[in-house]
Protein backbone atom coordinates (compact mmCIF):
# COMPACT_ATOMS: atom_id res chain seq x y z
CA UNK A 1 0.00 0.00 0.00
CA UNK A 2 2.86 2.35 0.72
CA UNK A 3 3.69 2.63 -2.96
CA UNK A 4 0.35 4.21 -3.75
CA UNK A 5 -0.51 7.84 -3.13
CA UNK A 6 -3.09 8.53 -0.50
CA UNK A 7 -5.76 10.77 -2.01
CA UNK A 8 -8.05 11.27 0.97
CA UNK A 9 -6.96 10.75 4.56
CA UNK A 10 -9.78 10.58 7.04
CA UNK A 11 -8.79 10.82 10.71
CA UNK A 12 -11.16 10.36 13.65
CA UNK A 13 -14.08 11.83 11.74
CA UNK A 14 -17.06 12.69 13.93
CA UNK A 15 -20.55 13.95 13.29
CA UNK A 16 -22.57 14.43 16.44
CA UNK A 17 -26.06 15.79 16.93
CA UNK A 18 -27.76 16.95 20.12
CA UNK A 19 -24.55 17.39 22.12
CA UNK A 20 -23.26 13.95 21.24
CA UNK A 21 -26.50 12.16 22.10
CA UNK A 22 -26.66 11.01 18.49
CA UNK A 23 -23.40 9.94 16.90
CA UNK A 24 -23.89 9.58 13.14
CA UNK A 25 -20.13 9.26 12.77
CA UNK A 26 -18.10 8.27 15.77
CA UNK A 27 -14.41 8.42 15.02
CA UNK A 28 -13.88 7.05 11.52
CA UNK A 29 -10.25 6.72 10.37
CA UNK A 30 -9.29 5.46 6.94
CA UNK A 31 -7.30 6.21 3.81
CA UNK A 32 -8.47 6.36 0.26
CA UNK A 33 -5.69 5.77 -2.24
CA UNK A 34 -5.35 6.78 -5.86
CA UNK A 35 -7.16 4.22 -8.00
CA UNK A 36 -9.00 2.64 -5.09
CA UNK A 37 -12.50 1.34 -5.44
CA UNK A 38 -13.70 1.54 -1.86
CA UNK A 39 -17.09 0.04 -1.14
CA UNK A 40 -18.83 1.01 2.09
CA UNK A 41 -21.38 -1.46 3.42
CA UNK A 42 -23.42 -1.67 6.59
CA UNK A 43 -26.97 -1.73 7.91
CA UNK A 44 -29.17 1.31 7.35
CA UNK A 45 -28.52 4.12 9.80
CA UNK A 46 -24.93 2.97 10.23
CA UNK A 47 -23.53 6.32 9.06
CA UNK A 48 -22.18 5.19 5.71
CA UNK A 49 -24.03 7.86 3.75
CA UNK A 50 -23.04 10.50 6.30
CA UNK A 51 -19.43 9.39 5.89
CA UNK A 52 -19.61 9.70 2.11
CA UNK A 53 -21.38 13.06 2.24
CA UNK A 54 -18.80 14.37 4.70
CA UNK A 55 -16.08 13.77 2.14
CA UNK A 56 -17.32 16.66 -0.02
CA UNK A 57 -18.76 18.55 2.95
CA UNK A 58 -22.42 18.13 2.10
CA UNK A 59 -22.43 17.22 5.78
CA UNK A 60 -20.21 19.28 8.02
CA UNK A 61 -18.30 17.04 10.41
CA UNK A 62 -18.21 18.11 14.06
CA UNK A 63 -14.79 16.63 14.72
CA UNK A 64 -11.73 14.99 13.17
CA UNK A 65 -10.09 15.85 9.87
CA UNK A 66 -10.20 15.04 6.18
CA UNK A 67 -6.98 15.67 4.26
CA UNK A 68 -7.56 16.10 0.53
CA UNK A 69 -4.96 17.54 -1.83
CA UNK A 70 -2.81 18.28 1.22
CA UNK A 71 -5.48 20.46 2.84
CA UNK A 72 -7.61 19.72 5.87
CA UNK A 73 -10.97 20.46 4.32
CA UNK A 74 -12.87 20.35 7.61
CA UNK A 75 -11.23 23.65 8.61
CA UNK A 76 -12.60 26.88 7.21
CA UNK A 77 -9.09 28.27 6.73
CA UNK A 78 -5.73 26.73 5.91
CA UNK A 79 -2.14 27.79 5.30
CA UNK A 80 -0.98 27.57 1.69
CA UNK A 81 2.54 26.69 0.49
CA UNK A 82 3.88 30.16 1.23
CA UNK A 83 2.44 30.07 4.75
CA UNK A 84 -0.34 32.50 4.01
CA UNK A 85 -3.72 31.85 5.60
CA UNK A 86 -6.29 31.23 2.90
CA UNK A 87 -10.03 30.68 3.14
CA UNK A 88 -11.12 27.22 2.03
CA UNK A 89 -12.85 27.44 -1.36
CA UNK A 90 -15.48 24.79 -0.98
CA UNK A 91 -16.70 25.13 -4.57
CA UNK A 92 -13.21 24.56 -5.91
CA UNK A 93 -12.91 21.49 -3.71
CA UNK A 94 -16.20 20.00 -4.86
CA UNK A 95 -15.18 20.27 -8.52
CA UNK A 96 -12.56 17.66 -7.82
CA UNK A 97 -15.07 15.25 -6.29
CA UNK A 98 -17.89 13.99 -8.47
CA UNK A 99 -20.99 12.82 -6.66
CA UNK A 100 -23.80 10.53 -7.73
CA UNK A 101 -27.00 10.40 -5.67
CA UNK A 102 -29.59 7.75 -4.96
CA UNK A 103 -32.32 9.85 -6.53
CA UNK A 104 -30.22 11.02 -9.52
CA UNK A 105 -30.98 14.70 -8.91
CA UNK A 106 -30.88 15.65 -12.56
CA UNK A 107 -32.08 19.19 -13.19
CA UNK A 108 -35.61 18.66 -14.55
CA UNK A 109 -35.90 22.03 -16.29
CA UNK A 110 -32.90 21.39 -18.53
CA UNK A 111 -32.24 18.97 -21.36
CA UNK A 112 -29.75 16.17 -20.78
CA UNK A 113 -27.14 18.13 -22.72
CA UNK A 114 -27.74 21.29 -20.68
CA UNK A 115 -27.51 19.25 -17.49
CA UNK A 116 -24.08 18.13 -18.61
CA UNK A 117 -22.60 21.38 -19.88
CA UNK A 118 -23.85 23.65 -17.09
CA UNK A 119 -21.04 23.07 -14.61
CA UNK A 120 -18.16 22.87 -17.12
CA UNK A 121 -19.28 26.16 -18.70
CA UNK A 122 -20.31 28.10 -15.58
CA UNK A 123 -17.76 26.76 -13.11
CA UNK A 124 -14.75 25.83 -15.22
CA UNK A 125 -15.28 28.54 -17.82
CA UNK A 126 -15.15 26.08 -20.71
CA UNK A 127 -16.60 27.26 -24.03
CA UNK A 128 -20.10 26.01 -24.75
CA UNK A 129 -19.02 24.29 -27.98
CA UNK A 130 -16.19 22.44 -26.29
CA UNK A 131 -18.35 21.41 -23.34
CA UNK A 132 -21.04 20.12 -25.70
CA UNK A 133 -18.52 18.10 -27.67
CA UNK A 134 -17.23 16.53 -24.49
CA UNK A 135 -20.72 15.92 -23.12
CA UNK A 136 -21.82 14.17 -26.30
CA UNK A 137 -18.73 11.96 -26.23
CA UNK A 138 -19.49 11.01 -22.63
CA UNK A 139 -23.15 10.33 -23.41
CA UNK A 140 -22.05 8.19 -26.35
CA UNK A 141 -19.90 6.17 -23.99
CA UNK A 142 -22.86 5.25 -21.81
CA UNK A 143 -25.08 4.59 -24.82
CA UNK A 144 -27.20 7.72 -24.54
CA UNK A 145 -25.79 9.79 -27.39
CA UNK A 146 -29.22 10.00 -29.03
CA UNK A 147 -30.98 11.35 -25.90
CA UNK A 148 -29.00 14.60 -25.57
CA UNK A 149 -31.99 16.82 -26.35
CA UNK A 150 -34.45 14.90 -24.15
CA UNK A 151 -35.60 16.11 -20.74
CA UNK A 152 -34.83 14.01 -17.65
CA UNK A 153 -38.48 12.98 -17.20
CA UNK A 154 -38.38 11.27 -20.58
CA UNK A 155 -35.67 8.86 -19.42
CA UNK A 156 -35.90 5.65 -17.42
CA UNK A 157 -34.34 5.44 -13.97
CA UNK A 158 -31.31 3.58 -15.25
CA UNK A 159 -30.80 6.11 -18.03
CA UNK A 160 -31.12 8.99 -15.57
CA UNK A 161 -28.49 7.52 -13.30
CA UNK A 162 -26.12 6.96 -16.24
CA UNK A 163 -26.58 10.62 -17.17
CA UNK A 164 -25.93 11.61 -13.54
CA UNK A 165 -22.66 9.67 -13.61
CA UNK A 166 -21.39 11.25 -16.81
CA UNK A 167 -22.58 14.67 -15.65
CA UNK A 168 -20.23 14.32 -12.69
CA UNK A 169 -17.50 12.95 -14.97
CA UNK A 170 -17.76 16.00 -17.23
CA UNK A 171 -16.03 17.99 -14.46
CA UNK A 172 -13.08 15.56 -14.64
CA UNK A 173 -13.03 14.82 -10.91
CA UNK A 174 -10.19 13.10 -9.12
CA UNK A 175 -12.56 10.90 -7.19
CA UNK A 176 -16.16 9.80 -7.65
CA UNK A 177 -18.51 9.40 -4.70
CA UNK A 178 -21.55 7.15 -5.15
CA UNK A 179 -24.36 7.34 -2.60
CA UNK A 180 -26.44 4.18 -3.08
CA UNK A 181 -26.59 4.72 -6.85
CA UNK A 182 -28.78 1.69 -7.57
CA UNK A 183 -31.12 1.75 -4.57
CA UNK A 184 -33.89 3.71 -6.29
CA UNK A 185 -33.79 1.67 -9.49
CA UNK A 186 -36.06 -1.09 -10.74
CA UNK A 187 -34.18 -4.39 -10.51
CA UNK A 188 -33.81 -4.78 -14.28
CA UNK A 189 -32.02 -1.41 -14.49
CA UNK A 190 -29.45 -2.02 -11.80
CA UNK A 191 -27.18 -3.91 -14.19
CA UNK A 192 -26.80 -1.09 -16.72
CA UNK A 193 -25.71 1.37 -14.02
CA UNK A 194 -23.31 -1.11 -12.41
CA UNK A 195 -21.79 -1.80 -15.83
CA UNK A 196 -20.96 1.89 -16.21
CA UNK A 197 -19.41 1.92 -12.75
CA UNK A 198 -17.39 -1.20 -13.47
CA UNK A 199 -16.00 0.33 -16.63
CA UNK A 200 -15.10 3.44 -14.68
CA UNK A 201 -13.26 1.31 -12.12
CA UNK A 202 -11.38 -0.50 -14.87
CA UNK A 203 -10.19 2.82 -16.24
CA UNK A 204 -8.59 3.54 -12.89
CA UNK A 205 -11.02 6.11 -11.48
CA UNK A 206 -10.81 6.43 -7.72
CA UNK A 207 -14.24 5.59 -6.36
CA UNK A 208 -15.96 5.53 -3.00
CA UNK A 209 -19.28 3.75 -3.18
CA UNK A 210 -21.98 3.23 -0.59
CA UNK A 211 -24.07 0.33 -1.81
CA UNK A 212 -26.20 -2.65 -0.94
CA UNK A 213 -24.99 -4.51 -4.03
CA UNK A 214 -22.77 -7.13 -2.43
CA UNK A 215 -22.02 -8.65 -5.82
CA UNK A 216 -20.60 -5.33 -7.00
CA UNK A 217 -18.61 -4.91 -3.78
CA UNK A 218 -17.08 -8.34 -4.25
CA UNK A 219 -16.38 -8.09 -7.95
CA UNK A 220 -15.24 -4.50 -8.40
CA UNK A 221 -14.18 -3.21 -4.99
CA UNK A 222 -10.58 -3.57 -3.97
CA UNK A 223 -11.39 -2.56 -0.42
CA UNK A 224 -14.55 -2.92 1.60
CA UNK A 225 -15.40 -0.91 4.71
CA UNK A 226 -18.00 -2.21 7.11
CA UNK A 227 -19.70 0.44 9.24
CA UNK A 228 -22.18 0.14 12.06
CA UNK A 229 -23.48 2.73 14.53
CA UNK A 230 -21.15 5.41 13.20
CA UNK A 231 -18.03 3.32 13.61
CA UNK A 232 -15.79 1.69 11.05
CA UNK A 233 -15.77 -1.85 12.43
CA UNK A 234 -13.81 -3.74 9.82
CA UNK A 235 -12.01 -3.04 6.59
CA UNK A 236 -10.21 -5.24 4.16
CA UNK A 237 -10.21 -6.82 0.74
CA UNK A 238 -13.54 -8.19 -0.48
CA UNK A 239 -12.17 -11.66 0.22
CA UNK A 240 -11.34 -10.78 3.82
CA UNK A 241 -14.72 -9.22 4.41
CA UNK A 242 -16.96 -11.72 2.67
CA UNK A 243 -15.06 -15.01 3.22
CA UNK A 244 -13.39 -14.42 6.60
CA UNK A 245 -15.38 -11.79 8.49
CA UNK A 246 -14.00 -11.31 12.00
CA UNK A 247 -16.34 -8.81 13.65
CA UNK A 248 -19.47 -10.55 14.97
CA UNK A 249 -21.67 -7.71 13.78
CA UNK A 250 -20.27 -8.04 10.27
CA UNK A 251 -20.90 -11.78 10.41
CA UNK A 252 -24.45 -11.10 11.51
CA UNK A 253 -24.95 -8.46 8.77
CA UNK A 254 -23.60 -10.74 6.05
CA UNK A 255 -25.77 -13.63 7.18
CA UNK A 256 -28.77 -11.40 6.59
CA UNK A 257 -27.86 -9.92 3.20
CA UNK A 258 -26.09 -12.78 1.45
Amino acid at each position, binding site marked *: MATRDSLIQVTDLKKHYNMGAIKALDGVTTNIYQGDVVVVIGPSGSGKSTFLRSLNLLEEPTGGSIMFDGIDITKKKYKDASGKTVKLDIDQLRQKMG*MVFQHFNLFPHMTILDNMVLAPVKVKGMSRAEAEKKALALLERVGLGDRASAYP*IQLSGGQKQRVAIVRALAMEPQVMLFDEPTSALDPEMVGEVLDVMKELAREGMTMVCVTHEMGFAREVGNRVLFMDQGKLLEEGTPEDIFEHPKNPRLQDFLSKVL
Partner: protein
Amino acid sequence: MDSFIKFSNFSKILPYAQLFRQGMLVTILLSLFTVAIGFCLALILALMRLSNFRPLRFLGIDKNGHERQGGFLELVSRFNPLNFIATAYVEILRSTPVLVQIFIIYYGVFGLIELPSFQVFGFIKFDRFFPGVVALGMNSGAYLCEIIRSGVQSIDGGQTEAARSLGLSQVQNLRYIILPQALKNILPAIANEFVVIIKESAITYTIGVQDIMSAVNAVKGATFVIIEPLLVATAIYFCLCFPTSKVIAYFERRMSRGDKR
Protein backbone atom coordinates in the same frame (compact mmCIF):
# COMPACT_ATOMS: atom_id res chain seq x y z
CA MET B 1 -89.82 53.19 -16.35
CA ASP B 2 -86.24 54.23 -16.94
CA SER B 3 -83.81 51.51 -17.81
CA PHE B 4 -80.73 50.90 -15.70
CA ILE B 5 -78.38 51.86 -18.52
CA LYS B 6 -79.23 54.56 -21.01
CA PHE B 7 -77.44 54.44 -24.33
CA SER B 8 -77.94 58.13 -24.74
CA ASN B 9 -75.71 58.59 -21.72
CA PHE B 10 -72.80 56.96 -23.56
CA SER B 11 -72.97 59.73 -26.12
CA LYS B 12 -72.93 62.22 -23.27
CA ILE B 13 -69.62 60.90 -21.96
CA LEU B 14 -68.10 60.42 -25.41
CA PRO B 15 -66.42 63.86 -25.39
CA TYR B 16 -64.44 62.67 -22.35
CA ALA B 17 -62.93 59.64 -24.14
CA GLN B 18 -59.54 61.33 -23.97
CA LEU B 19 -59.71 61.24 -20.14
CA PHE B 20 -60.26 57.49 -20.20
CA ARG B 21 -57.43 57.02 -22.67
CA GLN B 22 -55.07 58.96 -20.41
CA GLY B 23 -56.39 57.13 -17.34
CA MET B 24 -55.73 53.79 -18.99
CA LEU B 25 -52.17 54.80 -19.79
CA VAL B 26 -51.64 55.92 -16.19
CA THR B 27 -53.04 52.63 -14.86
CA ILE B 28 -50.77 50.64 -17.19
CA LEU B 29 -47.67 52.63 -16.23
CA LEU B 30 -48.62 52.49 -12.57
CA SER B 31 -48.97 48.70 -12.74
CA LEU B 32 -45.74 48.18 -14.68
CA PHE B 33 -43.67 50.27 -12.26
CA THR B 34 -45.39 48.65 -9.29
CA VAL B 35 -44.61 45.19 -10.63
CA ALA B 36 -40.99 46.15 -11.28
CA ILE B 37 -40.48 47.68 -7.83
CA GLY B 38 -42.52 44.97 -6.12
CA PHE B 39 -40.66 42.13 -7.80
CA CYS B 40 -37.18 43.51 -7.06
CA LEU B 41 -38.17 44.23 -3.48
CA ALA B 42 -39.74 40.77 -3.14
CA LEU B 43 -36.61 39.06 -4.45
CA ILE B 44 -34.46 40.89 -1.89
CA LEU B 45 -36.95 40.19 0.92
CA ALA B 46 -37.23 36.52 -0.04
CA LEU B 47 -33.43 36.14 -0.04
CA MET B 48 -33.33 37.81 3.37
CA ARG B 49 -35.94 35.41 4.68
CA LEU B 50 -34.09 32.41 3.24
CA SER B 51 -30.66 33.55 4.40
CA ASN B 52 -28.69 31.80 7.09
CA PHE B 53 -27.03 34.92 8.44
CA ARG B 54 -26.42 34.49 12.17
CA PRO B 55 -23.98 37.12 13.47
CA LEU B 56 -24.39 35.89 17.07
CA ARG B 57 -23.62 32.29 16.16
CA PHE B 58 -20.51 32.33 18.37
CA LEU B 59 -22.72 32.70 21.45
CA GLY B 60 -24.15 29.26 20.73
CA ILE B 61 -20.78 27.52 20.84
CA ASP B 62 -19.66 26.24 24.25
CA LYS B 63 -16.10 26.07 25.62
CA ASN B 64 -15.38 22.78 23.86
CA GLY B 65 -16.41 24.15 20.48
CA HIS B 66 -19.69 22.24 20.38
CA GLU B 67 -23.02 23.84 19.57
CA ARG B 68 -25.19 24.45 22.60
CA GLN B 69 -28.48 22.61 22.74
CA GLY B 70 -31.35 24.53 24.32
CA GLY B 71 -31.14 27.48 26.67
CA PHE B 72 -31.21 31.24 26.20
CA LEU B 73 -27.81 31.51 24.51
CA GLU B 74 -28.77 28.99 21.87
CA LEU B 75 -31.89 31.02 21.15
CA VAL B 76 -29.85 34.22 20.83
CA SER B 77 -27.28 32.53 18.61
CA ARG B 78 -30.02 31.54 16.16
CA PHE B 79 -31.10 35.18 15.72
CA ASN B 80 -31.02 36.16 12.06
CA PRO B 81 -31.48 39.96 11.78
CA LEU B 82 -32.05 39.83 8.00
CA ASN B 83 -34.81 37.28 8.40
CA PHE B 84 -36.29 39.27 11.29
CA ILE B 85 -36.42 42.54 9.36
CA ALA B 86 -37.92 40.92 6.27
CA THR B 87 -40.49 38.97 8.26
CA ALA B 88 -41.53 42.04 10.24
CA TYR B 89 -41.85 44.05 7.02
CA VAL B 90 -43.95 41.39 5.33
CA GLU B 91 -46.25 40.87 8.30
CA ILE B 92 -46.86 44.58 8.87
CA LEU B 93 -47.55 45.30 5.20
CA ARG B 94 -49.88 42.34 4.89
CA SER B 95 -51.79 43.13 8.06
CA THR B 96 -52.65 46.76 7.35
CA PRO B 97 -55.00 48.23 4.70
CA VAL B 98 -53.32 49.35 1.50
CA LEU B 99 -55.37 52.58 1.67
CA VAL B 100 -53.73 53.44 5.01
CA GLN B 101 -50.30 52.63 3.58
CA ILE B 102 -50.88 54.89 0.58
CA PHE B 103 -51.96 57.79 2.81
CA ILE B 104 -48.97 57.31 5.10
CA ILE B 105 -46.58 57.26 2.14
CA TYR B 106 -48.24 60.23 0.44
CA TYR B 107 -48.94 62.52 3.40
CA GLY B 108 -46.25 61.20 5.76
CA VAL B 109 -43.14 60.30 3.82
CA PHE B 110 -43.65 62.55 0.80
CA GLY B 111 -45.02 65.28 3.01
CA LEU B 112 -41.48 65.61 4.31
CA ILE B 113 -39.65 64.92 1.05
CA GLU B 114 -40.47 67.58 -1.51
CA LEU B 115 -41.03 66.01 -4.92
CA PRO B 116 -40.47 68.09 -8.07
CA SER B 117 -43.84 68.91 -9.52
CA PHE B 118 -43.77 68.32 -13.27
CA GLN B 119 -45.92 66.39 -15.67
CA VAL B 120 -44.92 63.43 -17.78
CA PHE B 121 -46.59 63.31 -21.25
CA GLY B 122 -48.37 66.47 -20.17
CA PHE B 123 -50.94 64.75 -17.96
CA ILE B 124 -49.16 62.46 -15.42
CA LYS B 125 -48.50 64.46 -12.25
CA PHE B 126 -45.20 63.15 -11.02
CA ASP B 127 -45.68 64.26 -7.39
CA ARG B 128 -48.86 62.14 -7.20
CA PHE B 129 -47.80 59.27 -9.44
CA PHE B 130 -44.49 58.59 -7.71
CA PRO B 131 -45.84 58.17 -4.12
CA GLY B 132 -48.58 55.93 -5.55
CA VAL B 133 -46.03 53.69 -7.27
CA VAL B 134 -43.87 53.55 -4.14
CA ALA B 135 -46.80 52.62 -1.88
CA LEU B 136 -48.20 49.99 -4.23
CA GLY B 137 -44.73 48.58 -4.91
CA MET B 138 -43.98 48.26 -1.20
CA ASN B 139 -47.28 46.52 -0.65
CA SER B 140 -47.04 44.05 -3.50
CA GLY B 141 -43.39 43.40 -2.58
CA ALA B 142 -44.59 41.89 0.69
CA TYR B 143 -47.02 39.54 -1.05
CA LEU B 144 -44.63 38.59 -3.84
CA CYS B 145 -41.93 37.89 -1.25
CA GLU B 146 -44.04 35.19 0.33
CA ILE B 147 -44.84 33.71 -3.08
CA ILE B 148 -41.16 33.58 -4.08
CA ARG B 149 -40.10 32.17 -0.71
CA SER B 150 -42.64 29.36 -0.88
CA GLY B 151 -41.54 28.64 -4.44
CA VAL B 152 -37.87 28.36 -3.52
CA GLN B 153 -38.68 26.17 -0.53
CA SER B 154 -40.78 23.86 -2.70
CA ILE B 155 -37.71 22.73 -4.66
CA ASP B 156 -36.25 19.42 -3.52
CA GLY B 157 -33.04 19.75 -1.50
CA GLY B 158 -31.40 17.18 -3.77
CA GLN B 159 -31.26 19.82 -6.51
CA THR B 160 -29.07 22.08 -4.39
CA GLU B 161 -26.90 19.15 -3.32
CA ALA B 162 -26.38 18.10 -6.93
CA ALA B 163 -25.57 21.64 -8.01
CA ARG B 164 -23.16 22.28 -5.15
CA SER B 165 -21.47 18.90 -5.63
CA LEU B 166 -20.74 19.94 -9.22
CA GLY B 167 -18.94 23.00 -7.88
CA LEU B 168 -21.64 25.61 -8.49
CA SER B 169 -21.58 28.40 -5.92
CA GLN B 170 -24.56 29.29 -3.78
CA VAL B 171 -25.43 32.18 -6.09
CA GLN B 172 -25.05 30.08 -9.25
CA ASN B 173 -27.22 27.40 -7.70
CA LEU B 174 -29.93 29.96 -7.03
CA ARG B 175 -29.59 31.56 -10.45
CA TYR B 176 -29.45 28.47 -12.70
CA ILE B 177 -31.11 25.69 -10.70
CA ILE B 178 -33.46 26.91 -7.98
CA LEU B 179 -35.04 30.14 -9.27
CA PRO B 180 -35.92 28.84 -12.76
CA GLN B 181 -37.73 25.87 -11.23
CA ALA B 182 -39.28 27.92 -8.43
CA LEU B 183 -40.46 30.57 -10.89
CA LYS B 184 -42.25 27.94 -12.93
CA ASN B 185 -44.06 26.62 -9.86
CA ILE B 186 -45.16 30.04 -8.65
CA LEU B 187 -46.17 31.52 -12.02
CA PRO B 188 -49.92 31.05 -11.42
CA ALA B 189 -49.61 32.81 -8.06
CA ILE B 190 -47.55 35.61 -9.62
CA ALA B 191 -50.09 36.02 -12.42
CA ASN B 192 -52.75 36.39 -9.79
CA GLU B 193 -50.69 39.01 -7.96
CA PHE B 194 -50.06 40.98 -11.20
CA VAL B 195 -53.76 41.09 -11.92
CA VAL B 196 -54.42 42.18 -8.34
CA ILE B 197 -51.89 45.00 -8.79
CA ILE B 198 -53.67 46.31 -11.89
CA LYS B 199 -56.99 46.32 -10.08
CA GLU B 200 -55.61 47.61 -6.80
CA SER B 201 -53.95 50.54 -8.55
CA ALA B 202 -57.46 52.05 -8.72
CA ILE B 203 -57.05 53.01 -5.08
CA THR B 204 -54.38 55.59 -5.97
CA TYR B 205 -57.06 57.95 -7.26
CA THR B 206 -57.57 58.82 -3.57
CA ILE B 207 -54.25 60.67 -3.62
CA GLY B 208 -55.01 62.31 -6.92
CA VAL B 209 -53.35 59.97 -9.39
CA GLN B 210 -55.26 60.42 -12.64
CA ASP B 211 -55.91 56.80 -13.45
CA ILE B 212 -59.07 55.22 -14.86
CA MET B 213 -61.04 55.73 -11.66
CA SER B 214 -60.20 59.41 -11.56
CA ALA B 215 -61.49 59.67 -15.13
CA VAL B 216 -64.76 58.12 -13.93
CA ASN B 217 -64.99 60.71 -11.18
CA ALA B 218 -64.21 63.58 -13.52
CA VAL B 219 -66.88 62.48 -16.00
CA LYS B 220 -69.37 61.95 -13.21
CA GLY B 221 -68.78 65.47 -11.94
CA ALA B 222 -69.09 67.02 -15.38
CA THR B 223 -72.12 65.12 -16.72
CA PHE B 224 -73.93 63.73 -13.63
CA VAL B 225 -73.83 60.33 -15.34
CA ILE B 226 -72.55 57.59 -13.07
CA ILE B 227 -73.28 54.04 -14.27
CA GLU B 228 -72.04 54.40 -17.83
CA PRO B 229 -68.54 55.73 -16.98
CA LEU B 230 -68.25 52.92 -14.45
CA LEU B 231 -69.13 50.40 -17.14
CA VAL B 232 -66.48 51.89 -19.42
CA ALA B 233 -63.95 51.61 -16.56
CA THR B 234 -65.02 48.01 -15.95
CA ALA B 235 -64.47 47.17 -19.61
CA ILE B 236 -61.02 48.79 -19.61
CA TYR B 237 -59.92 46.99 -16.44
CA PHE B 238 -61.13 43.69 -17.87
CA CYS B 239 -59.27 44.29 -21.13
CA LEU B 240 -56.08 44.89 -19.12
CA CYS B 241 -56.36 42.02 -16.64
CA PHE B 242 -57.66 39.23 -18.81
CA PRO B 243 -54.86 39.34 -21.43
CA THR B 244 -52.30 39.63 -18.62
CA SER B 245 -53.33 36.32 -17.10
CA LYS B 246 -53.50 34.76 -20.58
CA VAL B 247 -49.97 35.91 -21.46
CA ILE B 248 -48.62 34.46 -18.22
CA ALA B 249 -50.48 31.21 -18.83
CA TYR B 250 -48.65 31.02 -22.17
CA PHE B 251 -45.26 31.38 -20.46
CA GLU B 252 -46.34 28.79 -17.94
CA ARG B 253 -46.94 26.30 -20.72
CA ARG B 254 -43.62 27.14 -22.34
CA MET B 255 -41.69 26.70 -19.11
CA SER B 256 -43.22 23.33 -18.31
CA ARG B 257 -41.69 21.68 -21.36
CA GLY B 258 -39.58 19.52 -19.06
CA ASP B 259 -42.70 18.07 -17.43
CA LYS B 260 -44.06 16.27 -20.44
CA ARG B 261 -43.02 12.85 -21.61
